[in-house]
Structures are given as structure tokens and as C-alpha cells.
């Protein structure tokens, strides 16, 4: 009965972020150019793109920190400024170092809790959740980047929000921390929350996100599920066998790798296998080469890399 009450179609009406034709210019520079995007609950959406692609700007506009030049951003159907309890609706971490260095981590969270009328007991809870209990009474200026990130994540979780938006959350975390945040973000999404994270670590994103949004030069390049994006990239084959020279001649670009296996880019195993059969060749192994998200990302953003310092990015 309980699970019926909390059925998904009702829940998914809310708790999403919707951007419509969002454009943001800083003087002559267009940081975000007509971005239309919908982030749905129950997913970890990875936000990828080279420096200056407009990721941080997009997040700043969603939070109402920067005013859009045109277009709208809505959270739960409202602009950020109209949310009645912003931190209980969306928790965000944009810049881990944006904390008064003289205030302790605990006091930083106490300020935020009071501003949203969140009970003070919640502060100790989120500090424990991010593993910062022992460091909580030190001044924030003494924190390492990893500790600042944990405090920022604690602040994002403080209001138990249904939407989480984190800019480079694994930045500065140790391997344990990276694994911890991966598990945390996935479980938050599994609870039906909307999780939106940007990262430069493609391999990390591949393990955490199930949807991917790629931006380049302020424009949307891709908006797809991780599975679709990776499947679309799986085009090559790896073949093992005693005498593969005739097969190598049959495909342009085929080459032997260091292990003596034949790599055939651009041809799926079905095609390579059929050709080997036709040539009467003995085959010991045949597999698809899945291109990693990183390869796919590099190909997608190949033309879109903007040289640094062109756009306003947090953390530069």
C-alpha cells in the first residue's frame, strides 16, 4: 500500500529541472547558447563538456546566482527565486571553497539550517553522513579540498532535497571518497531524486551516471542514456587466431595490437566473423571493442573545445 501511494508517475511531475532556450552572455562571450534540457527524477545525469562549455554557468543560472540573458530555468515548475524553501527543494554544491575560512564547518551548516528553518539536529546528521564529524569543529580555512567537498555535499544534503546538483563533486576526493560519493549519488537517485553532476573524470562518470548531457561551446551536443551513448560507440572488433593476415587485408585500418590480436575499427563482430568464415579462417576469439565514454566524449567534443578563459567558469 505504501509503495502504491508513492507511485512514480505522481512523483515525477515534480522534482525535475527544466531549462528552456536558456542563453547567457557575458559581454561578447556567449557562455550558454539556447540550451533546452529536462532532468528527470530517479536518474544520475552526468554533465560533460570541455572547460568553457558552459556547465558551471548553467548551474549558476539554475540557482538564480546569474540572471539568464534569455530563456527560463524551472525547478518543480518554479524559478529558483520563487521556491518557498530553496535548500529543501534543491541542494547544490558549486564551489567547495566558497565558505568563510574563519567559521567552523558545523557553524557554516548551522547558519544554513537556521535560514531554512531546518532543525539543528539535522546538522550533526549530515556531518556524520559525509564523514566530517571529527573535523566539524575546525575552521573551514584549515580544510583540504577533499574536506571542503565533503562539507559542501553535507550542505547540499542538509535540506533533504529531492533535487541535487553538484559541480565536480569528486574533485579533490581520495579513492575512498570517490567510491563513497558514487554509492551515495546512486542511492539518492534510486530513492527517486533528481541527481545532476558535472565532472571532468569520464571514467568516473561512466560508473556513476545513467544519463549523459554533453555540452560544447554553450550548446547541447548530446542528451542520451549512458547505455545508448556507449552502444552507439561500439563499432570495432578484436579478433584472435593463428593466421589472420588475409582478414587484415580485407578491412581498411585493421592492425595488430601488442598481444597479437587483430583490431578492426569500424566493423562489428558480425561483419568480421562473416568475412573470416568466407575466407575459411580459423578464429579463436572475436569480440566487440566498446569505446569508452571518454573516447565517445572526445569524439563528440572534438570540434567544440574552446580555449580556456573565454567563458566564466567557477573555480578558475
Amino acid at each position: 500500500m505504501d509503495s502504491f501511494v508513492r507511485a512514480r508517475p505522481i512523483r515525477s511531475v515534480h522534482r525535475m529541472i527544466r531549462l528552456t532556450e536558456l542563453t547567457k552572455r557575458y559581454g561578447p562571450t556567449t557562455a550558454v547558447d539556447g540550451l533546452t534540457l529536462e532532468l528527470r527524477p530517479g536518474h544520475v545525469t552526468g554533465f560533460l563538456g570541455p572547460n568553457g562549455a558552459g556547465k558551471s554557468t548553467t548551474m549558476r543560472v539554475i540557482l538564480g546566482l546569474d540572471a539568464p540573458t534569455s530563456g527560463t530555468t524551472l525547478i518543480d515548475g518554479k524559478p529558483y527565486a520563487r521556491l518557498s524553501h530553496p535548500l529543501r527543494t534543491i541542494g547544490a554544491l558549486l564551489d567547495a571553497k566558497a565558505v568563510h575560512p574563519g567559521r567552523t564547518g558545523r557553524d557554516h551548516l548551522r547558519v544554513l539550517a537556521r535560514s531554512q528553518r531546518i532543525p539543528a539536529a539535522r546538522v550533526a546528521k549530515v556531518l556524520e553522513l559525509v564523514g566530517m564529524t571529527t573535523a566539524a569543529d575546525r575552521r573551514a580555512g584549515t580544510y583540504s579540498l577533499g574536506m571542503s567537498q565533503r562539507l559542501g555535499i553535507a550542505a547540499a544534503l542538509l535540506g533533504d532535497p529531492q533535487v541535487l546538483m553538484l559541480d565536480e563533486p569528486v574533485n579533490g576526493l581520495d579513492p575512498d571518497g570517490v567510491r563513497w560519493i558514487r554509492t551515495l549519488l546512486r542511492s539518492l537517485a534510486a530513492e527517486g531524486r533528481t541527481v545532476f553532476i558535472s565532472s571532468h573524470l569520464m571514467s568516473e562518470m561512466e560508473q556513476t551516471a545513467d544519463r549523459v548531457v554533453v555540452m560544447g561551446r554553450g550548446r547541447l551536443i548530446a542528451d542520451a542514456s549512458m547505455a545508448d551513448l556507449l552502444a552507439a560507440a561500439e563499432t570495432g572488433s578484436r579478433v584472435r587466431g593463428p593466421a589472420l593476415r588475409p582478414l587484415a587485408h580485407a578491412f581498411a585500418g585493421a592492425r595488430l595490437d601488442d598481444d597479437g590480436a587483430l583490431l578492426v575499427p569500424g566493423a562489428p563482430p558480425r561483419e568480421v566473423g562473416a568475412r573470416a568464415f568466407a575466407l575459411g579462417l580459423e578464429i579463436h576469439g572475436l569480440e566487440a571493442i566498446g569505446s569508452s565514454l571518454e573516447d565517445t566524449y572526445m569524439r563528440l567534443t572534438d570540434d567544440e573545445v574552446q580555449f580556456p578563459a573565454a567563458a566564466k567558469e567557477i573555480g578558475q
Partner: protein
Amino acid sequence: MTATAAPARPVRDHRRPLGLRDAVAAELIKLFTVRSTWWFAGGLQALLLLMAVLDDGGPTSARSLTVGLTAVSYFGQYIVAAFGLLVITSELATRSITVTFAATPSRGRVMVAKAVVTGIAGLVLGGVATALGVGTAAARHGELPRVLGDAAEQVAATGVYLGLLAVVSLGVGALVRRSAGALTCMVLLLLVVPEVLHLAAERLDEPLLDTFAGWTPAQAGWQLMSGRWEYVLVLVAWAVAAVAAGIGVLRSRDA
């Protein structure tokens, strides 16, 4: 379903929209959780006590009152100005203003909350420091019972002046956005502008400029601390104008 985050259960009615009171309460916690607040309070108090011990106050009927007046006008007000502007410039410098605006999207509400807390803090710090300073001086000169009534009025007037001055300084901090720049502007406003106006009045033989000089915050403050309470209106006007201008700048710019 993992219970990563237990639902927050607010004590007070959490459906009621957040208001100025919540923003003020948050700013109050901020005030008490940085060391700089105590540095300013301690510095102002030390200054007043030092002057009470060292300054004779000159040949007046109430030496202790003169000591309090000069200590605040010559030195103390700059400490309070620095305190007021740092309330906003420290957040702008550390970018923690983005966290503040994320929690309270109305920039007007943030600024008004800061003004309330900064003004009350300036009033309390200024009042306590003056009371102890003037009291010490009065005890030292053996004036205590005779000047008690006037001293009480001066303490109140000084508290009101320093509270309003802290708010003016907060507004200037929001306008200028940098600690060093805002402090320079405050020194110019308190010290240099009235002097220049007085000099110009003399040179041009234009008494109106003297009147304008009397309306600058420091000179209005001097009048107020000397018992001319109508100058509260001048200082309130400065505070309102500075905060309004600060809100205008915070609204018009990306955080």
C-alpha cells in the same frame, strides 16, 4: 531504498514561507561564529578604556564626556566602519555570498537582514564600550554622580550613532564590493569629504557648503553624541540610502 538521508523534520511549521526573521536569525549566527566580531568588540573597548585612562578631556565641566566623544570621533568610528563593511565584503571575497543567496534568493531580504544584525551589533558594541569608557573616565575624574544623567544620554546617542554608521558602512561595502576599497571610501566619507567641504566653504565664501559638511555621517554623529538628537534623521537617511544602493548593486549583478 537505502535510508541515506532521513527526512528533515522541522520543529516549527515548515510549510510557512521563510521570511526576514529566518534571514536575520541566520545572520545572527554568522555574526557570533567568526572571530573578527570579537576582535572589533575588543578593539573598540580597549580603545575607549585606554583613552579614559590617558586623556584628561581638557578644561571642561564634564571631562569624562569629552573623553568619550573624542575617542569615538577620532578613532572608534573607524573600527565600527571596518566592522560594518566586512559583514558583506568578507562574503563577496570568499564567494560564500553564493551560498547565502542560494539559501535566501531575495537579495533585498539578505541585505535588510544584514542591516538589522549589523545595526544592532554596532549599537550594542558602541553602547557598552562607551559606557565602560566614560564610566572609567568619570570615576577617575571624580565626576561620577554629577555627570550620570548626561553620560547615560551620551552612551545611548553613541550607540545609536555607531549602529547607524555600521549600517552605512555595510551599504558602502555592498556598493564597492572589496574590503580595501570600501574602507578607503569610508575614511574619505568620514574624514576627508567634510574637511574638503569646509575648506571650499571658506574659499568660496559659501556657508551652504558648511551645512553640507555638517550632514556628513561623522559630523552628524558628533552632533548626535553631543546631545542634538535631530541629527538621527540625517544618519537614518544615510543608512537607508546606503542599504538601498547596496541592494541595487547586489540585484543588478551576477553573484
